[in-house]
């Protein structure tokens, strides 16, 4: 057997205005975990999409088990034994877990000896066996949409593993997983390694990378920087290679001074009894309130409730002492509140629209001549101001926003909200799926906003981010606020303690 199961040599991929891959390389050995790292825009996802047949390479060669191959579509890749679990999930929520796993390749049987029909019994039995193998215990007949996001991700991984793959690509697999689920995933990865599977692990989480991988390939701006043995690397060394500069801090120094309380939420309760309930907290002027908790703690739901996306049936919101009624997002916006949502593709960007349109859409009233005519020059100015201020990388203001990298999309969305000069900014996972360099830039923006007197509520699942950026930390568990910790006292232990403080008895009827 060849030393390398799969090799990608001198891969070039060009998109309009952006050279996503510039002679990228990758060499995978069997039975290893090979981490692929780099800032967003470095080309990791693009390279994997070339491997998986979603993109066609402009130049370059792929060698699979010593033979040169051309991979033209995902089905061919799957048949060759290459499987990919995407960063952005695309399940079919209305169908069952089993149907999602076997989508497109249902086990068949012949009814009455001649009519081909789906063999449901076999499908459910196979699924149960598979789920046991990947250490997950859902009911295979359960509707996929009833599972949480992290559980759906686990099903995606099971789906990839079920295809008897020899190469498994995991793109940001732990972004929505709880600590337990991450451990479970790592056990699966170890099992697969023992079976000889080559695993490509794309992630921004340094500690995971250093723990699970054997080799690390680093890319920067579409270029191949190098491959190292994981045991020779440290977080600092990785970051240096990724960004090409020494990063002295991961977080900026903060000079914001929290003032008086301006935003108060009292006894806020969802119409759904299993969602957020009796939530009471406040935020001061110029303060960054970090919101920590496990996946499923209902942090997003609480903020969506406050912003008017979800309904609540009890509780009040007060701004500067005055109660405000919010039943739709535009009410919240009118009162100076902004919400950067968790899933930018679903509820953030308008994909086919330009960067200019996306950035100006929430503040169009400000760019009108004679109250009616949109002044394109003013919008262009807005775009340029934001491009400079936040270092947004885009070929032009007319580029379709969906062709930008995740980090740049996020910056455009932040620009959208800032154009309204809000007093309270709610940021839900503002740096998810974003590279180290862009993360730092966003932290600086957040710090500047707080210094300017804005109130920032930041939901984050990254401990270091919560600890590094918050003046105060609010912790939620399973829909309730379990406690507050002062920024300087916050550490992984006390946050995790509050985050896992589940109720031991069922709540009495309120």
């Amino acid at each position, binding site marked *: 057997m060849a030393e390398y199961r799969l090799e990608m040599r001198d891969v070039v991929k060009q998109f309009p205005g952006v050279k996503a891959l510039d002679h990228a390389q990758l060499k995978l050995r069997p039975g290893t975990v090979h981490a692929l790292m780099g800032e967003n825009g470095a080309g990791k996802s693009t390279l994997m999409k070339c491997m998986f047949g979603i993109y066609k390479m402009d130049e370059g060669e792929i060698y699979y088990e010593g033979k040169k191959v051309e991979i033209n579509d995902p089905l061919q890749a799957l048949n060759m034994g290459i499987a990919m679990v995407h960063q952005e999930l695309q399940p079919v929520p209305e169908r069952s877990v089993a149907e999602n796993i076997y989508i497109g390749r249902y086990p068949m049987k012949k009814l009455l000896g001649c009519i081909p029909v789906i063999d449901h019994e076999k499908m459910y039995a196979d699924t149960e066996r598979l789920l046991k193998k990947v250490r997950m215990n859902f009911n295979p007949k359960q509707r996929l949409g009833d599972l949480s996001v992290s559980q759906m991700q686990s099903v995606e991984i099971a789906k990839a593993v079920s295809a008897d793959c020899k190469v498994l690509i995991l793109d940001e697999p732990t972004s929505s997983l709880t600590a337990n689920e991450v451990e479970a995933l790592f056990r699966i990865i170890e099992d697969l390694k023992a079976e000889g599977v080559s695993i490509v692990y794309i992630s921004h989480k340094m500690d995971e990378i250093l723990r699970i991988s054997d080799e690390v390939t680093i890319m920067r701006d579409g270029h191949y920087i190098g491959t190292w043995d994981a045991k020779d690397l440290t977080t600092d060394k990785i970051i240096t290679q990724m960004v090409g500069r020494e990063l002295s801090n991961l977080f900026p120094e903060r000079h914001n001074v929290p003032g008086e309380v301006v935003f108060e939420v009292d006894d806020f309760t969802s119409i759904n009894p299993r969602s957020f309930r009796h939530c009471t907290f406040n935020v001061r002027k110029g303060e960054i309130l970090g919101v920590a908790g496990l996946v499923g703690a209902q942090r997003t739901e609480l903020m969506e409730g406050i912003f008017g996306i979800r309904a609540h049936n009890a509780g009040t919101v007060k701004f500067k002492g005055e109660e405000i009624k919010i039943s739709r997002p*535009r009410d919240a916006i009118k009162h100076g509140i902004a919400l950067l949502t968790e899933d930018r593709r679903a*509820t953030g960007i308008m994909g*086919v629209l330009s960067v200019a349109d996306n950035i*100006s*859409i929430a503040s169009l009233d400000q760019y009108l001549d004679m109250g009616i005519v*949109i002044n394109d020059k003013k919008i262009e100015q807005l775009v340029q101001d934001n491009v400079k201020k936040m270092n947004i990388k885009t070929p032009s203001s007319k580029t379709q926003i969906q062709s930008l990298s995740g980090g740049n999309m996020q910056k455009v969305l932040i620009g959208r909200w800032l154009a309204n000069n809000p007093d309270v900014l709610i940021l839900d996972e503002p740096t998810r799926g974003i590279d180290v360099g862009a993360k730092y830039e966003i932290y600086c923006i957040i710090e500047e906003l707080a210094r300017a007197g804005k109130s920032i509520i930041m939901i984050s699942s990254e401990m270091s981010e919560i600890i590094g950026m918050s003046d105060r930390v609010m912790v939620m568990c399973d829909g309730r606020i379990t406690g507050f910790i002062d920024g300087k006292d916050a550490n992984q232990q006390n946050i995790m303690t509050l985050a896992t403080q589940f109720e031991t008895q069922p709540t009495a009827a309120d």
Partner: protein
Amino acid sequence: MGKKFSVKSIGKWLSENIIIVLILLASVFVSTQNKNFLSANNIRNLLSNTAVRFIIACGVSGCLITKGTDLSAGRVAGLAACLSGILMQRASYDQRFYPGMPEMPLFVVLLIVVALCALIGAVNGSVIAFLKVPPFIATLGMQTLVYGACLVYTGAIPIGGLRSDYTGLATGYVGTRMLSNLTIIAIFIGLFMWFLYNKTRYGKYMYAIGGNENAAEVAGINVNKSKILIYMLAGALYGLTGFLVCAKSGGCSVNTAQGWELEAIAGCTIGGVSVNGGVGTIPGILVGVLVFEVLKIVLQFLGVESSYTYIAQGLVIIIAVALDLRKYLAKK
């Protein structure tokens, strides 16, 4: 960025606009076979026919851009035509619908008809926005309802005996005979729509809703209000179309403009309005509608029996939408 006219980029443009190219080639061929093809008469007819179909396509475009559709367009225009015709009958006409009614000014009738059709559009929009009925179903139901209403109202009797100032609207022209009043009106509508789509909040919100309705809601756009306005404007444009069509034909019946929504959707799609939402331009729609009209004339000049033209048109509609979707699949 590569050279603007590389083989690859020309090939790409060709595959995206193949329908337009093929029809243009066909018309070039036909013009060599028959000199009447490029005659002033033919071109004038082409412009007039395109004018009214352009207006109805502009109406449908807003619905398509927001990922909806409007299958009631043709029947609403038909109702408008009948109502206009009835209100514009000569006082001296022996089969007048309303024998005692005084003759009303053109503008008043236009206003009544447009207002009624805007109201129908508002109902469509409300049902879609508030009751969350899928646009396909909502407007299909309205299509049948409006047809029924028109049938009841007109008693299935064809409307004739129109005033000469009304029919003169269609035959009249400004300056040269090429620029009939219909063409001028269509040009003004086109300019107005272009302005609306590109330079007003209405237009930006419309594209945003089509691009991502959930994101539009989160960004503070009043999606329900926008949708109702879009379907209302569409209705108003159908009303104008019906008013003009009756004048153009010198008469109308309950079957006037039947099925025109499909041509309008085809014209929009050929012209670049995407069924994926959020995309479409007024100049594109004009080209699409024009090209579809040219197709009809080409078939006619090629001696194709009128029965066969439906087959050709249906094929073009399907191919146009398939090509449109291909743009979004091929982008990966």
